[in-house]
Each structure stands twice: as C-alpha cells, then as structure tokens.
C-alpha cells in the first residue's frame, strides 16, 4: 500500500505540494491527474524518494526512503534515462543484482518479449529510440516484482503494441494485489482501468473519487476533471 500523509514540498518561495494526503490500496489503480503546474511531478518525485519533503510517505508500511520501502517499490519516470554504455539486457542484469532479484533471467525474458525488446537485448542504451528507452524503463521497474508501482506519463512515446501490453500488465499487477499510481494528462488512456482518481490543482488535492462514486452520478472522469479544474458544473461534492 502507498500512503501519503500531509506531504508538503516547497521550492524556495513556491509551494509545489501543499499538505497532500491520499492512499493507494493493494489491488487498486489510482490516477493522479491535474492541469500543468498542479504539482503532480513534484509529488511523484517526493514519493519516489528523489526530493526532500515534509510529511509522511510510506510504501508497504515503511518510510519511502527506507531500504524496505525501496525493495517493494517500482518507478517508471516520465523521462527515461538509460545508461549509455550498458546494453538492454545489462540494464536488467544491473537491476536484478542491485535489487538482489533471484532467478531473474526468466522474468527478464518475459518482460523483454512483452515489450518487444527481445531482439534489442544487445543494443546499448545510447542506441535506443525514445520509445525503446521507455519500454526498457518499464522492464527495469517491473523486474523486481514491486508491490507498489508508480508510473509518470507511462504511455508517452510508446507504440500501440506496447501501450496495449502495458495496460494489460497493469491490470494483471492489480489482480496480483499491487498498488498502482499513474500520473498522466491523458485521461482517455486510463479511462478503462482506473479505480480511484486523485485530482490535483494548485499544489493541493482538489478531489478524490472512486470509479463507483463517479459512475453513480452518471459522469465520467473527464467531466469530473473539468468541473473541478475549470469550475464546470458536475455532480458530487468536492473534497
């Protein structure tokens, strides 16, 4: 489970995240959405342990910067950054060794095949296209079989096959009890599988809704988003 309690992040005079609190439960896909500058990326980076912050972020019950939390956490950043001088397969080997993943080869094979990277295993990081870098980043994040997975704009740059495959993977991971947080601008891309929507605006969580709550009002995610971010009328109360 991912739990964020009173997360506050300030860059000098800018308050990027103001007292955010939310949970992503096991077997749940939460989407973090919001207009540009809402503070999503900052929140993502705080959760990933890349930034300092005030508040509590726990992953599987452990503080997010602890070794225990990192062991069950997978992160797919918005901008993939492969290591120029390692091959695709060596990236996976590196992750397996660093995360102490036993018998990783078979899992790596499966991931490479699903992402259609199996014929690129000897390609160096610097030789990969943007899309292939993103696919590699996904494989690296999923190899240690994390229980909490966070994806920042995961579908950007992917080809249709990889998009289909990643969506299938997310659904499978949810079925296995993973807590998944997806940050995205593309509401359509997550429409079919989201369970909980976290809508951010001006550095705050403006609303939290479950799919059941929204569907009971006859609305969809897009309508809710615009009602909150642009003040258009919609059903349901804002948190």
């Amino acid at each position, binding site marked *: 489970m991912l739990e964020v309690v009173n997360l506050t992040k300030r860059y000098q005079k800018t308050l990027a995240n103001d007292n955010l609190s939310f949970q992503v439960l096991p077997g749940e896909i939460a989407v973090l959405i919001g207009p540009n500058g809402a503070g999503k990326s900052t929140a993502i980076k705080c959760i990933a*342990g890349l930034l300092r912050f005030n508040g509590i972020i726990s992953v599987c019950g452990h503080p997010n910067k602890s070794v225990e939390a990192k062991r069950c956490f997978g992160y797919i950043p918005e901008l993939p950054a492969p290591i120029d*001088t390692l*091959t695709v397969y060596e990236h996976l080997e*590196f992750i397996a*060794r*660093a995360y*102490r993943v036993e018998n990783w080869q078979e899992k790596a094979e499966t991931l490479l095949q699903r992402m259609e990277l199996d014929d690129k295993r*000897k390609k160096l990081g610097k030789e990969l296209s943007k899309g292939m870098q993103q696919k590699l980043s996904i494989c690296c994040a999923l190899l240690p079989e994390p229980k909490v997975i966070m994806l920042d704009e995961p579908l950007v740059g992917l080809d249709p096959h990889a998009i289909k495959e990643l969506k299938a993977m997310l659904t499978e991971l949810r079925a296995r009890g993973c807590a998944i947080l997806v940050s995205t601008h593309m509401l359509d891309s997550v429409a079919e599988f989201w369970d909980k929507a976290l809508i951010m605006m001006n550095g705050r969580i403006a609303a939290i809704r479950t799919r059941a709550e929204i569907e009971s009002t006859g609305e969809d995610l897009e309508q809710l988003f615009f009602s909150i971010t642009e003040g258009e009328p919609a059903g349901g109360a804002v948190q």
Partner: protein
Amino acid sequence: MRAILFLIRKQIKNSLMELLHHPARLITNAAVIAVLVMSLLSGGKADRSGDYLDLRILHGGFMGVMLLIGLPSLLSGLKNGAAFFQMSDVNFLFVSPISPKKILAYGLVKQMAATLLMMLFLLFYGATLSNLFGLAPWQTVALIGCVALLVFIMQIFALLIYSFTSGRPERANAVRAAIYALVAAAAAIVVVSFLSGGSDLEALLAAVSSPYLAWVPVFGWIKGLAFGIILSNRTEAVLYGGLTLLALAGGILLFVRSDADYYEDVLQAAETTFELKKSIREGRSFQKRSDKPIRVRETGINRGWGADTFFYKHLLQSKRKSRIPFVGTSSLVLVAVNLILAVFLQNIGASESDPIPTGVLMAGCLLASAYILFFFNIAGDWVMELAKPYIYLVPESSFSKLFWASLSSLIKPAADGLVIFTVLGVFVHANPFTTVLCILIYATTGFVFTAGNILSQRVLGTVGNKGLIMLAYMFMLALLFAPGVGVSALLYAFADFLPGFVIGLPIVVSNILVSLGIYAACRNVLSNAEMNNT
C-alpha cells in the same frame, strides 16, 4: 525592425531587473567582475624590470590557442552550422513576418555580445599573461579581444560552410580539405623554419613566431593584428586588421546574398544548443551523448549483489570506454600534457643555464595535473550516477551505495597517477621516492575531489544558483586541502633539511583523513539527497 529593437531592449532590461531581484546573483557577478579587474590590474602592477619569458613563446601560444578554439568551430559548420539563435528565436521570430535579414542581423549582434561576454572570462588569465610576458593590462585586453574576434568570425564562417555544404557531401569534402590545407600550411611554415634554423630551442622559438604565419588566412591575420596592436606596429595592425575585416564583411555578405532562407541552416544548431542548455539546467551538464561508437565485446555485469553492483557496472562501463579499466583517453592526455610541460620546463631551465631540479619539475607537473583532475572529476562516475534515479531507488543502505558508487571515482585518479608519474619519473630521471610521493598526492587529491563532491551534495545540494555552488564548492575544496598543504608548507619553510618525500607526506595523510572524515560524516547523504534533474 521595431519589433526586434523592442525585443533587444526588453531582454537587456529584464536581465538587469532579474539581477536586481536576485541579490545573491548580483553579488556573485559583482565579485566575479571585481576579481577580473583585480586580476588584470595586479598583472599591470608587476615589476616590469624583471625577467619575462621570451615573447616568441606568446606568438606560438597565441597561434596555437586560436587554432584550438577556431578549428572545431569551423569544422562544426560541416555538421550543424552555428548556434546564432535559440529555440525561442526559432519559435517566435522565424515564424513571424519580420524579414529574415533583419533577424539575421539580430542574431549576429546577439552572438557578438555573447562572444565578448564569454571572452571576459579569459581575463582571469590576464595576470598570468602579464606576469609571464610583462604585458600591460591593455595589451592583455587586446589579445583577448582578438580571440573574441576570431570566435565571432569562425561562427560566421561555420554558418556559411553549413549553408554551402549542407546535403552536398562533395562540397563538404572540398571544404574539409581546404580547412586541413590551411592547418597544414601553418604547420609547414613552423616545421620548415624549425628544421632550417638548426632544430634547437632557438630554432623552435623562431619557428613558432615566424612572420610568415601571419599570412595564414584569418588565423594568421588576426594574430598579425593582435601583435601589431600590442607591439604598437601600426602598419601591421592596419594591414592585418583590414584583411580580417574584409574576411568578416565578405563572409556576412556572401551568406546574405547567397541564401536568405537560412532558417534550416541554423535550426539544428539551435536545437542542439537548446538540448545542451536544458541538460545544464537540469544538472545533466556532462551527459551529452557521445557520438563515439562503443564496441560491445563481452556482455554482462557478471558480478555484484546489492550496492556493489554499482561498482561492477562502472567497471563494465569503463571497459567499454577503454581496454584497460580506469586507464583511458584522459590518462593519455594527462601523460602527454605532463611530458610536454616537462620538456618545456627543462628547456626554459637549459636556456638560462640553470637546470630546474627534477623534484621541482615533478611538483610543477603534479600541480598542473591536479588542476586538470578537478575538471575530470566533475564528470566522474559518482557525479554521473547522481543524475540517474537508480542510486536513489536501489534498496540498500545509503552508505553502502555511497561507497560502491563512488569507488571507481576513487580508483581512477590512483590509476591515472600511477601511469602519469611513473612515465614522467622515468622520463625526467626523478628520484623514485619523489615519483611515489607524486603518485600518492595525485591519488589522494582525487579522493578529496570525490569526497568534496559528496560534501557539496550534502551541504549545497539545495542551493539554486549553480554559479554560487561552484564558488562555494571551490572554497570548500580549498579548506579541505588547507591542513595538509599547510603542514607541508611549514615543514618546507622551517625544516628544509628533511627529504622531499617527508615534506610532502602530510598532504597525503591529511587528504586521506579528510576524505575518510567526509565519508563518515556524509554516510546518510543519499537518504537526504535530491535528484539533480528534477
């Protein structure tokens, strides 16, 4: 034109206003300017009756520096033109109904201003130039001004070359041949003059200051102009200045007349510069992708479990860069620099019939190598690792990740030091103890640089201004080196009967203790660090 003038006015005004709104930046800029002026004036106050280096060395050095700066710029024209414009210019000006020629004029003016600003930093070397060659401040400014002129002209030519050769390989080959012919001509003048002059130091000095070099197009003309000015030779200054101006005007005219549709010619360079600036802003300044092909011989990290995987990954990456791990191009560059420096110092000693002791010679080379190491270290494995997310995500303790991820950065200077000073020691017949001392000091200097990086990450990690970080980082390094250097200096001053090895040893011991202390104090740095490229 009104729109462009408005743009220039606004850019200047807003830059100044921004400076006023950021007192720290203002103070830094003021401090830099003060240091520049002091550096220049302190050189100017040097005792002019003293002994100075032969001015012919400056002739050769100046020509060398111009070729070193100008040629890559000229050759870049064959690949991607010149970086006259920024992406904002492309996005806003290029699509506007303003005449392309006016936009080009705007680009040229902006580029000229940027070049002059960039060259201001060369003034840091003003005092050194003045002290070595007995130059007055105005003479130093004239030399640097001529380098700025060269940079500017080379960028115009790069643009012209790109426009002329883009998509036409046969033209590109012809231009490349012409550029190489130019260099070959300059080299031929020096070699012929050296061989015909008796092949000794005197002949070398005469060769590198040969008056025929001034006839090498543009490079030689600017050199002629520079020395015409500083030696108050009005005829030469006017002659070569005139030729240079003709080349500049000719270049601009040719470009404007040949093709006003130059947007495509500058687009690639604008995009490259945009990417580069973005990287620098995001703290990925040294991660520009290399075009150099990497041969993958064997695959697999094969060792490591947990945090030590970082080290074995670095080892594999190092093997990919060179056959012998940790000894690569940078090591060879350092060996070459040191051998050239040693020959240079030996010749200076020989010409004055007062040979420089090998210990002093080794110390001079050690100092120069440590200076270069500072820049190599900034691009070390540890610093590169901080820009990727894995170092933060891997589930291991902060200290073990810190140790293993920085180990290769510690080994690299030790390996380099071993190679450089062994070769140098043999070459100058140095005392083996001196050689060992140099290796140890160089290696432990590398430790302090890496430890300094870690400390900087711990202490200065959140400061926004990169310029301030750099100043503070350098100040911090000076403090870290102070104990060892201080004790050694005291020993040298008050106990000079001791052998050199013993006098230098406190630096080694202090560097090791300081580095260990920083590792211990910063063991949790990765728990508190913020990733740079956020």
